[in-house]
């Protein structure tokens, strides 16, 4: 049987890098799953992504988060990038935050593209978010950005899932 769930590419950070791009994503899968283990370089700050290098105000994110004290929610409409995570990532040595980001039906041409993420930062809290990119174009690149930098040892793997 053909492999249904397979890696497309992996990026491992050497440190001091503020962004990384998965480009030339083939349109042959149904969904994409991005599995990220990230640590902040020196300062935990915002972490976002852009699809197909679109820097227009075409992203909206709704987030649910909790830090052990109380739950909260925010809405970020018509932004120039989509949120990757709410709480960001730890700066503590050897301590990485993790995210699983699901991009459903990323290559169809009739729907705006959506993604759902679940993430955790052991220094801060856990969150889940739903984001939309208001474009019907197939996703062919994903760029993630750190407000500061990604620490050495951070790694992101992009997988493709192919439906029957």
């Amino acid at each position, binding site marked *: *049987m053909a*492999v*249904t*769930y*397979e*890696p497309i590419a*992996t990026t*491992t950070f050497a440190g001091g890098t503020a962004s990384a791009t998965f480009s030339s994503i083939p349109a042959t899968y*149904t*969904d994409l*799953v991005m*599995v990220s*283990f990230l640590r902040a370089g020196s300062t935990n700050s915002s972490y976002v992504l852009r699809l197909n290098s679109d820097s227009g105000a075409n992203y*909206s994110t*709704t*987030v*649910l988060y909790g830090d052990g004290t109380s*739950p*909260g*929610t*925010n*809405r970020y409409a018509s932004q120039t990038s989509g949120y990757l995570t709410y709480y960001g990532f730890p700066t503590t040595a050897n301590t990485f935050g*993790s995210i*699983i980001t*699901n991009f*459903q*039906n990323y290559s*169809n041409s*009739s*729907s*705006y593209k*959506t*993604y*759902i993420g*679940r993430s955790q930062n052991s220094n801060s809290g856990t969150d*889940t*978010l*739903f*984001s*939309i990119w*208001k474009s*019907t174009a197939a996703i062919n690149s994903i760029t993630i950005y750190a407000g500061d930098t990604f620490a050495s040892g951070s*790694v992101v*793997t992009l*997988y493709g*899932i*192919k*439906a*029957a």
Partner: protein
Amino acid sequence: MIGALVAGITGAPSPPTSFDSIATITATGSESTLTLNSIPGTYKHLQLRGIAAGASTSYAILRFNNDSGSNYVAHFLYANGSSVTASALTAQTALYPFRAYSTTSSFFGSGVTDILDYASANKNKTIRSLTGDDESPLIMFNSGLWLNTAAITRIDLVSQSGNFRSGTTFALYGLKDS
């Protein structure tokens, strides 16, 4: 979700090799129900992934084995950017795994639902879902229980009102154990 968790969480994860595509169903615009039938009992867990939209529906609700009795229980934790809500529903006639609210073309809700130990003959069946939509912004965790120990052989995804919009798609995957 199941697939990525099975892959392992050290270094560069390896993909699961026991994650199979079982079937995919896509609405043409004339269906209020999409059915996945004759689900083989050879996997350990199922995962349902999809995008959904309907002009007058909030959810693609789910029924197992054509059971429309009051045999389902659901719990929700959700947020819309203004408030966070937790709720529970008992004696339901379906579960609520996928947001599908959309009155505007191009907007679809999406989600991933895990159906655990679906082929067991001695456990009531459970699901866990992560879903959301943007036209009526919402991000939601929900869980569900079907009070029936029968192996799941059929899944119906039903629009709460009207038909699903063309392009609504659900893909079913099976995860094997060793």
